[in-house]
């Protein structure tokens, strides 16, 4: 594998990792908001 191909591969991996970090972080944020809201809702009913 030549140097250019190795660099191509590293950039490709970086791009795919960045995409999944962004998407999964947002999903985790929504999950966190969901939990907070559930507690808030329970509190509001008490």
């Amino acid at each position, binding site marked *: 594998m030549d140097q*250019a191909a190795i660099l191509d591969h590293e950039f*490709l991996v970086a*791009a*795919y990792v960045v995409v999944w970090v962004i*998407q999964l972080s*947002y999903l985790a944020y929504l999950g966190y908001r969901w939990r907070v809201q559930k507690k808030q809702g329970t509190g*509001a009913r008490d």
Partner: protein
Amino acid sequence: MKRLLIGIYAGITVLLMIWGFYQAIYVAPNDAMQGEIFRIFYYHVPSASVAFVFFFISLAGSIGFLAYRRNSPDRAQVADAWALAGAEVGVVFCTVVLTTGPIWGRRAWGIWWTWDPRLTTTLVLWLIYVSYLLLRRFAAGPQMQTLAAVLGIFGAMDVPIVYMSNRWWRTQHPGPVFGGSQGSGMDKTMLGAFFWNLGAWFAWGIFVLILRFVLERQQQKISAAEAQAALEA
């Protein structure tokens, strides 16, 4: 029943994502000119497509809110929840576009960024919708939703400009692959990977969009209940 349907949809989405990834990495051939780096295209372009569609959902929600806010407050709140969900999930996908693009650009062009019309208009689009989200987060008072709706409509006006930018002004960004001039298009062996990933990212986007919409509707109900309780106290 509802939980089962959500589970089935989530399962199909995960399978689509895995299949899309497999197609992009193992099935599609390397690009003759760009080599392996071209595979970023299979995540970059579908993400841009999802962002554009979701910004239009935000536009429809914003118009709906302005249309219903006086005579049908319940419908206006539903429309507003769609506007917010579309804008927020659209920003997430637009962020993906604005990060994968420079990673590809660094390898293909040797630079992370250039003030090319496509890149600049996309950055402006992202900034408008980030402003929209900041307005919703930090502004208070009865006019906040109306102001946000106006900004949402204004922001969506940039979507066709972003889409047409590499047709109107030919500079650094590659020309349109689909619907471009003569000679544009993709090799048949790459089409499968592209369309599988397009479907997979739309499925993922719709899942997250609905989740965000439900979350906002719940928040609206909690806020309304709290306001009612405060009035009765």
